[in-house]
């Protein structure tokens, strides 16, 4: 049924339709509306046969989820940013134990400095923890992919992280076709755990594994993600059959057929990029884009195929490997092993900085002329940077970088007069 609702609320409805049995809730901007909505759905009797537990921290949230999933219940939780880091130990534990928990990450920057706005550093910080990581571009996809996530997780016995841009998607009102229960039931069978804590069949779970077996266990975790590369397209094909639309998958492409310049990115920014690409195409630039939807497992093969024929690749990401450059860019370069195609790494949108068509147009225009640095920070204010570097040079006690910059750009001054 078509609805005009907030992204978070759509996700809550999608989760509810997936018949979760245990939901753990701890609030953190920007996912709070999801867990609040789910709490109301349970309390109001609309989501039945579900335990909604208010926990005391994110570490507790995922730990409760680990217990409940191990005992055979379909389990869900949500977090972002600082919360994801606070549960980091449990994130590795969940995937190591092979528990099919589904978790929303409302992508948000990580402090210090504290920042509540969107970027993808949080998910990226857990990219190697063994979870499947799926990124969505719109709120429609957010609803659809959460439903798919349960099926993927339970088929593989592996936890899945569904990543959606905080505020930009979570807090945006847009048109969503919310599926009906019959469709979801057809697509998503009841949870049949691969392993379960059961007095009738007692097992020990979580034993120590020493040097003689650890490598094999880890190899099998990697192998399972390789299986996911095949499973994910199967699931999305099945989804299309039942729900009638394309959602999820490993990657999606836009106008790449004859593109000289191909932009690779993740998440909601592709929307603005598509408008920009249309404008540039109208002016004769052969440019297209690939959106990575499954970041883990990383679609090396699908990406390599999509980028075949491109004269240059621009990787645009809302995260940064401090001391190296682009995280996604490094991963994309692996897909292009052996190919002589330049890969330009662009870092943009950090901490919620808006990404505009105008900036993208300039960026893509420069890229198409190979007039880009290897690493570009989109819309970087070089003056502010230079002034701070000068400060640091001139004064050994120059103070906090963040506070200095805030003073410099007058944020502090205007806050006082507003």
């Amino acid at each position: 049924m078509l609805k005009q609702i907030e992204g978070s609320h759509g996700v809550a409805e999608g989760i509810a339709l997936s018949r979760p049995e245990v939901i753990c809730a701890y609030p953190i901007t920007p996912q709070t509306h999801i867990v609040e909505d789910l709490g109301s759905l349970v309390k109001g009797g609309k989501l039945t046969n579900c335990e909604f537990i208010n926990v005391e921290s994110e570490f507790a949230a995922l730990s409760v989820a680990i217990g409940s999933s191990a005992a055979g219940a379909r389990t869900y939780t949500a977090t972002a940013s600082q919360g994801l880091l606070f549960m980091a130990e449990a994130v590795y534990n969940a995937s190591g134990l092979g528990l099919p928990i589904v978790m929303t990450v409302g992508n948000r920057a990580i402090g210090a400095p504290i920042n509540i706005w969107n970027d993808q550093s949080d998910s990226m910080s857990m990219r190697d923890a063994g979870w499947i990581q799926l990124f969505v571009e719109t709120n429609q996809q957010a609803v659809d992919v959460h439903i798919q996530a349960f099926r993927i997780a339970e088929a593989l016995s592996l936890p899945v992280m569904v990543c959606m841009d905080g505020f930009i998607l979570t807090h945006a009102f847009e048109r969503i076709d919310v599926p009906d229960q019959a469709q979801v039931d057809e697509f998503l069978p009841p949870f049949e755990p691969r392993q379960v804590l059961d007095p009738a069949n007692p097992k020990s779970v979580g034993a120590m594994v020493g040097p003689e077996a650890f490598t094999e266990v880890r190899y099998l975790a990697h192998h399972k993600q390789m299986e996911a590369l095949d499973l994910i397209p199967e699931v999305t094909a099945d989804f299309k059959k039942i729900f009638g639309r394309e959602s999820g998958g490993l990657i999606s492409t836009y106008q790449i057929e004859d593109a000289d310049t191909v932009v690779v990115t993740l998440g909601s920014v592709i929307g603005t990029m598509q408008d920009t690409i249309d404008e540039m195409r109208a002016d004769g630039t052969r440019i297209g884009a690939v959106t990575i939807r499954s970041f883990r497992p990383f679609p090396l093969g699908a990406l390599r195929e999509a980028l075949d024929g491109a004269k240059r690749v621009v990787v645009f990401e809302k995260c940064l490997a401090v001391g190296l450059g682009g995280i996604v860019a490094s991963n994309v370069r692996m897909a292009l092993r052996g190919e002589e195609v330049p890969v330009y790494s662009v870092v943009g949108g950090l901490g919620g900085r808006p990404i505009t068509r105008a900036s993208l147009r300039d960026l893509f225009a420069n890229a198409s002329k190979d007039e880009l640095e290897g690493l570009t920070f989109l819309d970087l204010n070089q003056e502010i940077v230079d002034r701070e570097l000068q400060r640091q040079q001139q004064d050994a006690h120059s103070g906090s970088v963040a506070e200095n910059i805030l003073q410099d750009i007058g944020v502090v001054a205007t806050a006082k007069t507003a």
Partner: protein
Amino acid sequence: MFQIRIHGRGGQGVVSAAEMLSVAAFLEGKHAQAVPSFGSERMGAPVVAFCRIDDKEIRLREPVLEPDALIVQDPTLFHAIDVFAGLSPQGYVLINTSKTTKELGIADAVKDLPEGHVRTVPATELAMKYVKRPLPNAALLGALAAVTGAIQMDSVVEAINTKFPGKVGEANITAAKAAFESANAS
């Protein structure tokens, strides 16, 4: 695509205004996107919300940089931030005030806009009268319907009902209708 930017302060229902506007457009079978531009939740701080309306899917996610219409829920903002930034030369400006643009000190800023595109609406007064709370958003949406035709008054009514069922909704609808009538009359 028709782009609206709503300016106000925390607690004035700026975000709700954008949401209801998007719902109104949705009810007319259009695509609509409403997004708040946040700081941390704090009463009184400047808040901006965006709404886009189009006949086809909206893919654009940047802030509304070139609004076709501005709704200014709090006129004290004129001197705090650049409310008019990017306003289309054919744009509309709806201001929640009983003062004139001259009294507000913005007559120059809006002088090149087409005749009838700049309207003052005593929305807070209407809200106090019908809703008994200083929430001017519903009234301003009624005025927007009248002045721009971007959405229909019926859709605004239904959108308000969806967001605020019952007596609260009715009161807001009355305020919206009053603003609609008075905007049409002037």
